[in-house]
């Protein structure tokens, strides 16, 4: 068994018992990267030099008998929209091709203070806008399970790196499904925590009221460890909540007898791939087998989620991306007549098609004369969606739903039809709209051996219930042990 194929909890034990050195772990992961990265294209930048410096420091600490933290020596990959001091943060965009962040994101400070070693920055859809990682300016990441297919997105690099053992875990960001959908496509565990549970300070904003950082891991136990590492109030993010510290590993319980699962059957009638439906149904059966109670639930407004999402997310994005204007940092056009020309050319040349499409949409829905009809109305619908979930969670503990309606599609299959691409997020977007936590875990494969994901959703700050259900499912299935043949 190669070191790189282990989980966080397995490698941690080996490091702490000094069965392996941290350098050996890094060597293993970087040689894995050397072997397959040219095929997978999960990374935009590697931080190898810095990683080895950290490895030696941590090893010395360990040898001196000091505590190196729960992630001591564990190599972790970071989505390239999370800032690391003195490291490029490109957001997958030409606009920020050479942008070096002057500060660390709060999650980076937390991970490093717990001994994690950051090994590189992962590929993503430009500014996290997309569901396939195809809109990255730099490269197309492929799905390790079939290199002709997309890894999902926007955190496709983070998903593919964990799925193909090029990282023990990774961080992504999820605005409408950007962690859970690629986790589903690549057969990893992926979680979007409750809005406000993890600090967003240092996450380059796409849609501020929806964005949330979350981990990709190889199993549910690692997910609990990663959550323990990144959760917590941050004075620098006033939308982050101040709650008592929870040890999420306590909820790795192989039992669902006390859990009622709601299934929104009505919502699953249209547009769901039959093979995904089949895997979903048998997953529910499995949970029932282990004592879970299952009920039908009705989410009346959930069908408006996607439309509402594309108003609110684009509105916020149009404002958040205004700062990329060619003045202070980032891409600036070579030739320009005047200030307006500088703005127009820099933004036209620096942004890709999908980003420009969303900036235009967002600008439109906020403009005077249209604001009430679109943005204001969307905010009202959002409140209805939130209330809908609240009502449903009075009768169940978690909701189960497929993560995505399909398995990974061929590269290029949906790039000419953005609406079709947007529909891949239909089951993940409602969770962001309501600010709830959601987890995707491997639950099967289709006839082409492409992974299928199962999503659990809980009410705000009930990540522990997600972990319990996911852990029970994982303990009684083998899907998470499957590795892509790459």
């Amino acid at each position, binding site marked *: 068994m190669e070191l790189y194929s282990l989980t966080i909890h397995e490698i941690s034990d080996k490091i702490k018992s000094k069965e392996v050195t941290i350098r050996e772990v890094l060597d293993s992961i970087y040689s894995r990267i050397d072997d397959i990265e040219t095929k997978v294209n999960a990374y935009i930048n590697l931080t190898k030099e810095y990683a080895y410096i950290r490895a030696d420091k941590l090893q010395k600490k360990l040898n001196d008998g000091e505590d190196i933290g729960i992630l001591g020596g564990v190599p972790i990959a970071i989505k390239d929209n999370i800032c690391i001091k003195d490291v490029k943060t490109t957001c997958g965009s030409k606009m920020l091709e050479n942008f070096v962040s002057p500060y660390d994101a709060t999650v980076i400070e937390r991970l490093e203070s717990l001994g994690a070693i950051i090994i590189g920055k992962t590929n993503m859809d430009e500014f996290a806008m997309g569901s396939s990682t195809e809109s990255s300016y730099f490269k197309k990441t492929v799905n390790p399970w079939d290199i002709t297919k997309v890894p999902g997105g926007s955190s496709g690099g983070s998903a593919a790196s964990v799925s193909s053992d090029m990282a023990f875990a990774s961080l992504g960001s999820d605005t409408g499904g950007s962690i859970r959908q690629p986790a589903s496509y690549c057969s990893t565990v992926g979680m979007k925590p409750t809005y406000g549970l993890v600090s967003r300070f240092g996450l380059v904003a796409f849609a*501020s009221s929806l964005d949330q950082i979350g981990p990709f891991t190889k199993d549910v136990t690692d997910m609990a460890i990663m959550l323990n590492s990144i959760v917590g109030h941050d004075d620098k993010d006033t939308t982050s909540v101040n709650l008592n510290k929870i040890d999420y590993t306590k909820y790795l319980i192989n039992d669902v007898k006390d859990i009622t699962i709601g299934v929104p059957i009505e919502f699953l009638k249209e547009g769901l791939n039959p093979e995904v439906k089949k895997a979903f149904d048998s997953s529910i059966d499995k949970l029932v087998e282990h004592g879970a109670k299952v009920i039908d639930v009705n989410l009346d407004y959930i069908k408006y989620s996607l439309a509402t999402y594309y108003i609110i997310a684009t509105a916020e994005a149009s404002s958040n991306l205004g700062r990329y204007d060619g003045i202070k940092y980032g891409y600036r056009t070579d030739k320009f007549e005047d200030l307006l020309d500088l703005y127009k050319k820099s933004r036209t040349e620096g942004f890709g098609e999908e980003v420009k499409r969303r900036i235009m949409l967002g600008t439109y829905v906020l403009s*005077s004369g249209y604001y009430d009809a679109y943005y204001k109305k969307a905010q009202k619908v959002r409140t209805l969606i939130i209330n809908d979930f609240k009502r449903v969670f009075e009768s169940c503990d978690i909701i189960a739903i497929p993560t995505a309606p399909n398995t990974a599609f061929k590269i290029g299959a949906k790039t000419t039809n953005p609406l079709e691409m947007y529909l891949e997020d239909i089951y993940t977007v409602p969770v962001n709209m309501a600010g709830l936590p959601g987890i995707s875990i491997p639950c099967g494969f289709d006839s082409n051996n492409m992974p299928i994901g199962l999503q659990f959703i809980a009410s705000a700050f009930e990540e522990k219930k997600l972990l319990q259900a996911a852990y029970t499912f994982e303990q009684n299935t083998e899907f998470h042990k499957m590795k892509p043949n790459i």
Partner: protein
Amino acid sequence: MEDKLKEYEVIIGLEVHAELATKTKIYCNCSTEFGSDPNTHCCPICTGMPGVLPVLNEKVVEFAVKMGLATNCEIAKFSKQDRKNYFYPDLPKAYQTSQYDLPLCNNGHVDILVNGEHKKIGITRIHIEEDAGKLIHDEFTGSTLVDMNRCAVPLIEIVSEPDIRSAAEAIEYMQTLKGILEYLEVCDCKMQEGSLRCDVNLSVRKYGAPKFGTRTETKNLNSFKSIQRSIEFEIRRQIEEIENGGTIYQETRRFDDSKGIGYAMRTKEDAHDYRYFEEPDLAPIVLSEEYVKNIKNNLPEMPNARKTRYMKQYMLSEYDASQITNSKILANYFDNTVSLCDNPKAVTNWIMSDFSKMLNESGIEINQSKITESNLANLIKLIDTNVISSAMAKKVFIEMFETGKDAKEIVEEKGLVQITDESAILKIVEQVVNENDQSVSDYLAGKDKAIGFLVGQIMKLSKGKANPKTVNELLIKVLENKK
């Protein structure tokens, strides 16, 4: 044309921007200090680096609530911050965080005193927002540079109702706000540094017209003089335009103070669509009853209350009291001086006449003058104890203003001590009476005017030192004896 001007009513509303005197910026810990080297008070947050988030400085809310309470506003228990989106190189985030539909303070008013009459000026709202940076054009290279020190310095915007009817009222309103801001110590009110500035919304209509005329907005006026001149200019321009059959367009204007001329900057057609929406990175501002009450109970004495106190306690006229109390610096100077010499009337007279004239001429504030409170008090004491006459005091005052020396020192140096000894004065009186037969006979013939000439001669002979009152008394006595 001058007659035509009188046919029109002028409608003015002011939007006053006051930089708050907090130590740090509105969303980060950078200093708000003015005048430092460019781009030295900046961090990733106030320069809008990717990924940063704002954290609201609570002092900003406190200061704005203070101003709201001092101007009789209702304080919103729930308000929010919004993004005002537009592109400009001095605005690193491409949006200004401000307040749009739910400001912190609403429906206030202040009283102003113009030509002895009281007038209430309504305040529509006061909201908090952030300042932008500064563009500096480099003549040498022809490039434009950005200084971000001022980015995210906290501001309040005080929006008045269209209750102002003249330049004089606008100035008085601005003076009143300035006084309140100074008393609260929430703004340093240094207009030349831009920490207090205003936009003037102005329209005209014939008296009796049912509707307001189209208004224009003249932006960024940062001295009382430019506010006054720009208003006078704009009134005349609009009336002339209308009288010549032209149209007033809703537009943003700029006033060139050096030339005394206003220009149109942009019309409504190419006005920005700011696409306001709620700032998702900041939670709504929720204030408790206790919070507001606590601030209210701890407000310092306000100019109006101080004015009333001065009128009662020191028997000052409303005009004098209002002039002195409008400026906290002036009022404090007044208080300190009165406590040292116990003659409020004399202190008022000095401050309202010679002193303020000289301050105006040299363009400085009273606390920048060389005459300290104790200097002025000592001067007044010298007069009150008959050591020097009022006439001498005026000369002494000029020297005090120029040199900063104490009155006593000047009086001693110049030997200005008043002669009050009656026998010494009598000697001079008798000498002058003896040497001026003509004037004496004029007086005795009933021409009282002659006495003035004689007094003048006596004062001249005593080198101005004789006590004028004694001179008068003795002269009349001597002359009467000749009858």
